[in-house]
């Protein structure tokens, strides 16, 4: 067999260069800046800078608000991911059974994905608004007082729904594609052997869907942790009483609104650590259990 060998040493570097430059400028350099800033105490204008060692970090872990933000983020991320994936899978299964109208439903179901998160946030803000929103009005008719403006639980439900909504479309698309690649012959064979629909789903369809599920788990967790900023900013602003103040939003609040750059940088370094750990765990341990 003939192997193609490139002797030019510069060509691979040249071809890689655009990606490497982008990574260096937009990822490595800012990350290095953040690490540097996290050891400094500085006024907003950068007129006085002082090295304070790990003070910014110790202050964070002594602050009950920061620890609270951790648990808020955990609840929020898990809820968004679970809600997204369960609903996406249910819809994918429903659409997968359709024969004629499948295309129409698929198109309609992926529409929300095209809506920008900030716009989605505003839409949900209107729907859930305690005074002018339609949903609290309907809920009041059945005796439920839904007011996210001062009820922390209601606020959490609200931001989870607003964040999961557009994400369901995205996951739906992947689940549907996954379902359609499950060979019908396997399911038919099982049916002939006497397995009911529920049994068939859990023993055949779900295991064969596991690569899709794993992929969606990763992207949805990352989405919920890091990309829901716009939804929070357009709806609850992290309130009431910090009950929806997720880690990413807190970085923005402290750094941009509060101009406390040292603490904000320390928080983003911690977030960076979380991302690294998450990625390692997911690819090291979870991936092994997935049947491709």
């Amino acid at each position, binding site marked *: 067999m003939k192997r193609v060998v490139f002797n030019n040493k510069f060509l691979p570097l040249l071809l890689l260069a655009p990606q490497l430059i982008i990574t260096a400028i937009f990822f490595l350099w800012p990350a290095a800046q953040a690490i540097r800033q996290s050891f400094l105490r500085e006024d*907003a204008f950068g*007129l*006085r800078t002082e090295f304070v060692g790990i003070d910014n970090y110790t202050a964070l872990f002594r602050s009950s608000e920061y620890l609270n933000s951790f648990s808020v983020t955990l609840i929020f991320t898990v809820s968004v991911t679970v809600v997204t994936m369960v609903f996406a899978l249910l819809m994918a299964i429903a659409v997968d059974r359709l024969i004629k109208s499948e295309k129409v439903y698929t198109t309609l179901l992926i529409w929300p994905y095209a809506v920008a998160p900030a716009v989605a946030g505003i839409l949900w803000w209107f729907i859930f608004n305690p005074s002018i929103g339609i949903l609290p009005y309907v809920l009041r008719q059945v005796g439920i007082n839904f007011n996210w*403006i*001062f009820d922390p639980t209601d606020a959490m439900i609200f931001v989870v729904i607003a964040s999961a909504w557009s994400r369901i479309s995205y996951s739906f698309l992947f689940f549907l594609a996954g379902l359609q690649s499950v060979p019908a012959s396997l399911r038919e064979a099982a049916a002939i052997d006497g397995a009911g629909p529920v049994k068939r789903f859990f023993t055949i369809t779900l295991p064969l869907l596991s690569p899709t599920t794993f992929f969606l788990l990763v992207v949805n967790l990352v989405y919920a942790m890091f990309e829901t900023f716009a939804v929070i900013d357009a709806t609850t602003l992290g309130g*009431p*009483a910090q009950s929806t103040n997720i880690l990413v939003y807190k970085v923005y609040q*402290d750094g941009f609104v509060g101009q406390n750059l040292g603490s904000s940088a320390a928080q983003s370094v911690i977030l960076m650590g979380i991302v690294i750990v998450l990625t390692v765990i997911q690819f090291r341990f979870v991936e092994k259990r997935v049947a491709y």
Partner: protein
Amino acid sequence: MTKFFAASTMALIASLSAAQAKTDIQWWHAMGGELGAKLEEITKNFNESQDEYNIVPSYKGNYVETMTAAIAAFRAKQQPAIVQVFEVGTGTMIAAEGAIYPVYQLMTDNQEPFDPAAYLPAVAGYYTDTSGNMLSMPFNSSTPIMYYNKTVFEKAGLDPNTPPKTWAEMEEFSKKIVESGAATCGFTTGWISWIQTENLSAWHNQPIGTLENGFGGLDARLEVNGPVQVRHWENLKKWADEGLYKYAGPLGGDNAPPMFYGQECAMMMNSSGSRAAVVENSKDFDLGFAMLPFYDDVEGAPQNSIIGGATLWVLQGRAPEEYAGVAKFFTYLSSPEVQADWHQFSGYLPITTAAYELSQEQGYYEANPGADTAIKQITLNEPTPNSKGLRFGNYVQVRTIIDEEFEAMLGGSKDAQGALDAVVERGNKLIEEFQAQNQ
């Protein structure tokens, strides 16, 4: 060779004409919508009134975004000459010595006539240092007032021309309104921090913090957990539980205007700067204006309310001829005609006495009843150390803390004393951090 000559002659001509062209001066502001259009009209008039300077206004988003953008630009040495900063950013700006060009100094350096006494004391005082020097140029200042629905008052059997004066009347009237079914809630309010905490303190001549509410230096601390503030928060919680008062959300209280416009709540306390919007949205009912209520058993109440809004700060590091232009522009901006026009259009306070008098002469207040409520309230008494404003670092975040603790109290996890103690404790940590950053 001829080509080279031609090119260099062209370049020379270009540079000459550039030298003769107007000096561009960047002004970053946070006025969107109609206010932004009015602001552009003002700068256009100034630009056409002379041929040396050209003010270039750019809208940079809300107050927080504008201030953040200006600070980031300063760090990158790309700062504008003028930036509009909201009142709670004052502490941060003043502490940035070397980054700001104090207005009194700018005016002296450029030989522009400038008399700090021409400005309303309640407005200028907020932006003046302890030696009486004005540090920034007041532009849009407002103060909270009460808007009320006369139609609902009538339905509830109340006199539509007698708004409540005290908090006791506020409770009594709200009860009547709710019990008679005229509206489902008595009152709501924007800005728990600005109106129901800071202004409540000033209005009752109670301190918000030590060292004259922070005017005296960076080591000032909050002390907003006094008996009057605790009593008021306790009452708000009680009235919220009884359905007399409805909470409208953090920061500005986004839900307050819809609840008032929809006639759900009969009264609303909000910025006088939103007067135009309130009038526009209250066409289904008769609208009344009143001063903020007070507790009549507190000595010294009512004192005077304090302002909100924004001022124009001049940043260091631009060319000298730009500063000459900025000084000229500020003189133009505070002329009675420009100020009176801006005040009448926007509902913001007239910042000079001359502008107020001009508006009176023009018969503006007779034609627009209620438009002078704000100015009467802010000039009710000579400001005391407790009522001339407040000046703390990191105050944007302190306001967030006030909202959070108020929400915690409404949710029942804390009582009023506990919530305000937490405001002081958490707020002081931020203020200490600010002090450490700036020393």
